[in-house]
Every structure is written in C-alpha cells, then in structure tokens.
C-alpha cells in the first residue's frame, strides 16, 4: 500500500468525521437555545471557538455576529477550512484520488452526496429546512462510514481510515468539552441549576452520547460524570479514551507502529492521572489544552513514520527487507 495513498485515506476519514461534527454541533446548539432563557443563553459564538477559527470569523464579521453569520461560517464558508463545506469538499477531493482503493458504492455515495449538498446548500440552510438538511448530512456520512466498515478489507488502508476517524473524534470531543464547559460558568447559582443540567445534556447530545450516558451513569446529569464519560469512558465510541484505544489497536497491526504506540501509552497515563473532580474551569482548560497537544503529537508521529517523505533524493541502495530503520533515517 502506497504511503501517499494511506495518507489520503487518513485525511478522507478525518474530513468526513469533521463534516459530520460540524453538522451535529449546529443542530444541537439550535436546540439548546430553545431551552434556555435569553439571559444565560450562550448564543452562537462558542461554536466558532469549537471550530478554532475565531480570528478569521471576527475579521469577516466585525459587528456583533448573528446566528445566520455563524451558521454560514460553519456550514457554507469556503474560506473557512473547518467548515462543513470545506470538509466535505476535501473529503471528496481525497476520495477522488482513492478510486482504486475505495469500494465503488462508497465512492458513488460520497460523490452523489457531495453534488447534492452543493446544490441544496443555500436553500437547505434556511431556518425552516436547516434541521432536516443537517440531519441528513450526519445520516449520509454515517451511512458512508457504514459502507466502508462493511465492505473494506482489513488492510493498511482500512487501518488508516480508523486512525483518521478516531484521532479526529478524540480531538473534536475534547474541543466540545473544553468550549462548552467554559460557557457553563455563569450558571453556577442556585436558581440557574436546572439549566445547568439542560446544558450538560446538550453537550452529551452534540456527541450523540446522551442515551449511552444514561445507560452507563444512572444519576442526575452532573459535570464531573459527563467529563468522566466523555473523556475517559472505554466503551462509548466518541469518548477520548475509547478513540485512543482504537488508535492503539490499529497501530499494532502496522509493522512500524511501535514508536507511536509508546507515545500513546504516555497519553493514556496522562489522561488517567487527571483528577477530573478536583479540576476547576481553568484547570480543566489547561488539561484539555495539553491533551490536544498530545493528540496532535500522535498525528505527527504517524505522519513522520508512514506518510510520504517530501525529499527522496540521495537514496542509497534500498534492499527489499529490513529497511525500515534506514528508511526512517532517510526521512530527515
């Protein structure tokens, strides 16, 4: 399997996951706002923070931003590399280079969905049809993932599909926890307590985690339980720890995955040590910041070992076996 190809599979998978998350958080936010009194409603800007593109957004919308601006920025803005539009476009561009790898049905579905999305984007985002439109984005992307899971051979390209999906998921879950918990601060007074529950429920719902959370934690929705569930649960597929377990499992199927597995062990120890109950907001933020750096380092480790090296001149004799060590020396 070509190094360039597995890199493209990896990005295809990340972009599909990113697109799905973008659609998901818009819908959940809209629902949340309906449940909250105006005074404490966080509005739409936190979504831009989750997306991590606040500076670009502020430059485009110097005046107080409205719902429409934020939804447009997150769903339809071509210049926002994290938007649903861009993610879907990049997913398709990557898939286009993978025609010989991807199951034909999956490619056909993605291709058809991409053109349908581009066609219906402007009408689909109108407030009346938005919920249905975005729900369909989530549903279709899940369907495509299902086809991939159901029809791809478990070879190196599938491995990188799972790696991309889980690293993106871990990253997105940690972002949502970070940004959402920061907004929830003002609600910590007795009369707003009921609304705190509603908000933590919305955090869970934006990750489709509410039902599974209820099944696993049989008490009132509380901050510490939600944090524990979303960060450290090992059974829920969008929990960070679960995603890291998946990454480990896949890395072990690769001949040269060991250095990243070692790093991964360190990340999991770091996560296990965190005293979530004792962490105040600032402490939680600092913890998640470091977690994201770790996730990014995992990505860099994978890229360094498995993705194409930009410079391949000056290669000495390349024998066909036992070259992995020499190989990694050549890279830098």
């Amino acid at each position, binding site marked *: *399997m*070509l*190094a*360039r*190809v*597995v890199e493209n599979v990896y990005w295809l998978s990340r972009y599909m996951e990113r697109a799905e998350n973008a659609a998901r958080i818009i819908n959940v936010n809209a629902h949340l706002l309906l449940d909250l009194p105006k005074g404490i409603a966080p509005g739409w800007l936190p979504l831009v923070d989750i997306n991590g593109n606040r500076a670009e957004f502020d430059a485009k919308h110097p005046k107080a931003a409205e719902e429409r601006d934020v939804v447009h920025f997150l769903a339809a803005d071509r210049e926002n590399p994290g938007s649903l539009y861009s993610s879907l476009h990049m997913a398709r*561009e990557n898939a*286009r*280079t993978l*025609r*010989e*790898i991807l199951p*034909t049905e999956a*490619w*056909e579905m993605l*291709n*058809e969905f991409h*053109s349908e999305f581009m066609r219906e984007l402007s009408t689909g985002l109108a407030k009346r049809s938005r919920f249905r439109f975005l729900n369909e984005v989530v549903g279709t992307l899940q369907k495509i993932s299902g086809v991939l899971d159901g029809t791809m051979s478990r070879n*190196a390209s599938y491995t*990188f599909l799972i790696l991309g999906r889980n690293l993106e998921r871990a990253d997105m879950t940690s972002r949502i926890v970070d940004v959402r918990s920061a907004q929830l601060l003002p609600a910590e007074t007795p009369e707003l307590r009921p609304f705190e529950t509603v908000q933590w429920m919305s955090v869970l719902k934006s990750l489709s985690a509410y039902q599974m959370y209820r099944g696993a934690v049989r008490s009132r929705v509380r901050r510490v339980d939600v944090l524990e569930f979303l960060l450290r649960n090992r059974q829920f597929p969008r929990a960070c720890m679960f995603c890291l377990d998946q990454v480990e499992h896949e890395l072990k199927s*690769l*001949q*040269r995955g060991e250095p990243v597995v070692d790093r991964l062990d360190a990340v999991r120890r770091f996560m296990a040590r965190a005293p979530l109950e004792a962490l105040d907001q600032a402490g939680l933020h600092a913890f998640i910041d470091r977690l994201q750096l770790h996730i990014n380092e995992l990505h860099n480790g994978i890229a360094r070992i*498995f993705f*194409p*090296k930009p410079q*391949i*001149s000056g*290669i*000495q*004799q*390349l024998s*066909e076996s036992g*070259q*992995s060590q020499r*190989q990694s020396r050549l890279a830098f």
Partner: protein
Amino acid sequence: MKANWSTYPTAGLHDELVGPGGGSRAAARALLGYLTELGGTEIAVRQQAAEMAIRAMGITFTVYHEQDGSIDRAWPLDIIPRTISRKEWQRIEKGLIQRAAALNLFIDDIYQKQRFIRDGRMPGEIIHTSRNFRASCVGVKPPLGTWAHICGSDLIRDRDGTVYVLEDNLRVPSGVSYMLENRQVIKRVFPELFENSAILPVDDYPSQLFDMLAALSPRKGETPEVVVLTPGIYNSAYFEHSYLARQMGCELVEGRDLAVDSSDCVFMQTVDGWSRVDVIYRRIDDDFLDPETFRDDSTLGVPGLMRAWKKGNVALANAPGAGVADDKLVYTYVPDMIKYYLGEDAILENVPSFRCAEPDQLSHVLANLHELVVKPVDGSGGYGMLMGPSSSKAERAQFAKALKANPRSFVAQPVITLSTVPTLVDDAIEPRHVDLRPFILSGPQTSVTTGGLTRVALRRGSLVVNSSQGGGSKDTWIVDAEA
C-alpha cells in the same frame, strides 16, 4: 420525438445502423426494432437514466478551462449504440493485429539496425527530424522486442463503406475505460436487449492488460509488482488511470511515490517502507518521464527511470521512444512496413495521404488546399488542423505559409465524410458522425478489444469527435448477426 427510421435522413451518408431507404443493417436489426417499439418518450427517459448513472458512478473527464482551471465533467454518452457485425469485425481485428505487429517491428528496427531505411524504404531524415524519436533509446532491447504494448488506432468509415485507419496512437492512448464504462451504463439502461441478442462482451480487457504487463517483468519466477504511473489528479485522463489500476488491482502511483536507487532498481514508497517495482504502465509522456534524460523541469517523472529501464531492471509500457511511429508522416509508410516486415498486403487501408515533405506532393497540396485536410504530424486531440472546405481564405494563406516554411511538419488528406449513427439531439434522433478507437495489446500474444470506443461529433455536420472539443461517445456492439 419519434423513432421513425423511414424518414431518418441518410442521403449522402453512410449510416452504421440504418441502410439506404430506412431499412436496418443486419447487425442493427434487433436494436432498431427495439427502439421503435420503445418509442421516443421512453428513449428520452432512458437517456436521462444513463446520465444519472454516469454522474453517480463518477465517470468523468477533465477539461482545462481558462477561467476555472481544470474542471471535472460528466462523461458524455449517447445511449443509442453503434453496431458492427461480427463478420466485419473479424476482418478488422485481423487487420489491426497485422498493423500492430508491423509497427512494433518497425520501431525495434529504428532503434537497432534501421534496415527499413538502409533498404531505401524511407528517407532517414524523417526519423532524425521526428519530434518523438529518442536518441537515448538507440540500442535498447526491451523484453519481447515490443515497444508499443498498447496501441489505440483510430478507424473511420467513408461514405462508400470503406474502413480506413486514420492514425495510430502509440504513446499513451486513452479511452479504453470509457469503452468499458459505457457498456456498464448501457447494460443498466437496456437490460432487455442484452438478454435477447448476441452482443459480444467487452469486459475482459483489464485482465488481458494485466497479463500482458506481468509478462514483461524482469524478475522471472516472482509475483511481479505492476503499477500504473499517472501525472496526477489534474490530468485529463486521470479517471482512466485510476479506473485501470482499480480493475487490475495495481497501485496507482505518481512520480513522487517512486525512486531509483544506486543499483538502478525502481522502488515505491509504501506504508511498510520501500518496495521493488517490476513493471510500470506509464501514462506520462516521454518528455516528462525522467528529468535526468528528458525535460529536466519535469516534476511528474522519476529521476533515473531511464537508467533502470535500459539496464532491464524495470519494464515500461509503452516503451520510451515508441512514439516515433506515431508521427503522421511515418503513418503514411505503414502499408510499406507491413509489406517489408511481414511480406503481406495491408488488410486495413490508410487514408490516402500527401507527404508535404516531398516537393511534388507539396505543390499538389498547395494548389488544392480548399478541398483537403491539413494536419500537423505530431498533433493530437484535433488541434491545429486546417479543414479545407470550411476554411477562410486567410486561414488557407496562413497554412500555405506554414507548409512552405516547414513541409516536414504536415501531411494532407482528402476530406472523409465519416459514417453516422442515429443520435439523440434535443428532442429528435438525427445522424451524427462517428469514429472508432479499438485498442490492441501486444505482448506474448496480441489481442484486440471487442469493438472499441465510438466517439461521436454532437454538432450537426461536424467531423470533430474529440471529447475535449464537444464530442460524445457511444457504446459499441459487435453483434453476431448470424446467431
């Protein structure tokens, strides 16, 4: 819209399906009867179904657009197939095999002893002034002595029914994936017809291509690593490169995935490290193949690839330099090659051609520009031609000047009124001109695709079938009319 063949205009034309007076040709009988029964409205519905299938299957070709860069367009397919009787096809197939054999012998001769020239069959300057002659290939002996492993020859039929070879594409001919996909789409659209008639299948091509490529491997006894080398996603034929790699189960590589090591072997960069490559089906022009040998600004190729090929450590298909026989002036010598190398008469005729490089023929061409087609010898895609009868005085003057300045660069041919096939145009069925590109694989055995890619000029009266210039395509049926 009506599917009424008695009013279908065939006057002055040779139609592939409808004979003079509206009767159907033998190979088309079942098809035309079926279309009549289906009726115009239903035919239009099926055309839409085909277009939807093409979009969903992502069958595209890339055109370069001045404002928007390269755009991926849905492949244009007209659902009314073009039919050829099996009996006629058998003769054409034999002719193509003969032609490919002679062309390969010629190329091998040109890079070895040049007997054809020394025996006075062709002036030596033609080779030395050919843009596609590669001095660096002189003396190289590729496996089996084969240079043009994949050849796409364009066939046309004149209004008197004669089939001619218009040109031979020996560099990186494309179109075969569309031939295969057209059949897939048409099977979805007209399933009833395939159940009831003897239409020969086409889908064996990818496995034949793979077997041929695998037979070129320098490491005998080991499972050969065959790859398809593409210039990348923005190339107009990228769809095809990816399609063929997928169908053959090969890696689709770009130049940057490959490297040549100090022992002159080729490796690709895989997820498990570097891995040896034995055979490269390259879809990159010679010019860009190896910056050490050819254009040094090429970023598409692989430095050192020619070294590896000359040492016999990797096989390239088609071999570098094979394009020397692609030159349209060399084309005019193909019937002589068949006689010289095989001792046979050509089964398929060349279009009568004037060699502008020869002074008496040049003066004839200059005097008759208004009724000739003038073509650059190294052109393709229908670019840079003069269509005499529809040209302006100024265009003819411009070509006359170019011809006198550089006669070696042109050939001229009479205008051939290409045969037609009924085609859906807006809401009617009208005759449109077609050609046919079969593909010939030369390896341990020689094989020809069953039929080929039929290209159709969609504008009324137009003879330009290239998809880059608004041409469409049709499924091609070789029909066993006697079955």
